[in-house]
């Protein structure tokens, strides 16, 4: 039997397969553009591919570093290695959440959770669907009595 996701004291991170899907998404525009760049010259094509691989690697590293923790009053996101970013979102400021899945994400058993607040929005890509459901439900339950 599948164990329910325990929100208390746990942190949510993208799964390895979720990260792989993110890398595929990032690689697709480069793969489409690459033949046109190779058309300009083999050297230019190689440079473009190298730069795009670097970009995909950067996205993979950033996805690896993403951690979302749910505290009693806040949702905190940590991401980035060389350029660390910490986002503190009061739970009562969250107005809505959006969970979306593509066929690839469904295969990977992951989803993308988008969190909307009046001032900004945050994205948790590639996290397990069960965790996204639990986080979304917890956040919106808190927001009911707000404003």
């Amino acid at each position, binding site marked *: 039997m599948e164990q329910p996701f325990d929100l208390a004291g746990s942190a949510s991170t993208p799964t390895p397969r979720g990260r792989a899907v993110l890398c595929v998404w990032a690689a697709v525009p480069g793969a489409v553009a690459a033949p046109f760049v190779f058309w300009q010259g083999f050297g230019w094509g190689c440079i473009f591919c190298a730069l795009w691989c670097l970009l995909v690697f950067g996205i993979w590293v950033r996805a690896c570093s993403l951690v979302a923790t749910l505290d009693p009053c806040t949702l905190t996101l940590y991401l980035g290695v060389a*350029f660390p*970013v910490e986002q503190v979102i*009061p739970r009562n400021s969250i107005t809505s959440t959006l969970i979306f899945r593509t066929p690839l994400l469904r295969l990977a058993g992951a989803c993308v959770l988008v969190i909307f607040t009046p*001032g900004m929005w945050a994205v948790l890509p590639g996290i397990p669907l069960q965790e996204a459901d639990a986080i979304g439900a917890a956040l919106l339950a808190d927001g009911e009595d707000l*404003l």
Partner: protein
Amino acid sequence: MTGTGRRRYHPFFALRFMRRTLLLYLVPLVQVLFAREWQALQTALAQDLALFCLLALISYVMLRASSWELDADGVLRLHWNLVISFERTVQASQLAAVQIERPVAYRLGGASRMTLYPSLLPKGQAVTLCLTRRDAQMLADRLMPAPVEENYHPAGGERLALVLLGANSLSTLLLIWVALGQGDNAAEQMALAQLDQAAAWVAHWLPAGLAWALTVWTILFGVSLLRSFSHTVRYTVWRGNGVLASRGGLLLRVERRFRLDRLTCAEVRLSPAARLLRCYPVYLTAGCYSGDDPLFVYRAGQEELVQRLLPAFRLPPNRRFTLEQVRGRSLVLIAPAGGSLAFFVLLLLVASWALPSAMPLLALPAAACALWLVFEVEGLFREGAWPADGRLTFLRQRRMSLRCVCVFSPVVCLTITQSPWAVTQNRANLTFAYPGHLHERVRSIPLSDARACAAFFERNDPHDPNDSV
């Protein structure tokens, strides 16, 4: 409370549409440029007249098709009913601010421009209505009633604006005198130096051009000051029923109302003039409202007035200047002023041997940049964010003003960002994301201070229903 029933907008609503189509009238006139004949001009004017009639008809149809009503539950409904029908609803309880503006033309026509600022929507989604004066006043009283409980007639604002205006007038006269003199000097110098044609042209026009550019800039600044001064005439601020309101202005009469429990933040701007005159303007941000005009101005020693009008307002802690505060701090903070000063100093050095007559004019912006640098250095020492007395406060240097901000809203998000260099220095940038997608960044503060601000949200639930602003 009873509903208002469906009501029409003021005819000025249609004029707003007509104003947006002014450029269309130029289209028929284009052919006159090519033909250059009276016949073509007559045809173009006839076409313009036909276009005007058509647009006037469309405006009339728009005016008849749109209406508004306030129902008994305090919900404002904006209707459109022509071919398709739609209705936009605005809940009175979700409004953060209401603004009624009455420019001279509107006053002559008996109209008011009313803007409603919802608390959770972005700035572009504020609702602007064109109503009759009586309807606007009634709607404001129903949406955000503000009975006078605490009244205040600020005098500092007029004084501040008048002094700035006087200083600006004097500097403008001085610059005009310098500019008139530059024209003669440059011509004389050109004749004496016998430079080649291009250099002579530059030598002739550069000093005079610089002088006139500075003069025009000062005149424009003066116009904006005059506008600020006209806003302070017959100005009054009052508080009542959980609403803070202000009304005043000479040419443009403006009334603003803010729901205190929807305020995002309040800030005191310490500009050079404000410090000299010891009159401090207080600005408010509420929902998607973020105005450039202060709500009121208080004099030094009148802090209890701020406490009366905004009881929850806290100033950031006043810390002593120590070298510890700037150790490891990014020098990017003083880069804009430093770079500009270096540029003008370089120009001065070049002008000292190439074009000595331009030196006084280049010295003016160089002096302004030096002053700017002094203020940025102050920001280097003072900028920071701290929780104080149950509120989040921060100091932020922008141009020559030091902004002392107190955050009221419980729905403000924080973002702490670090560069690799900042990681080694234990420093971070802290960004406040307000409702309405407004952002404010405090730069290169100690990481411990940034974490203390984050912990402020984690430790306490700032949204305490019993805690009223």
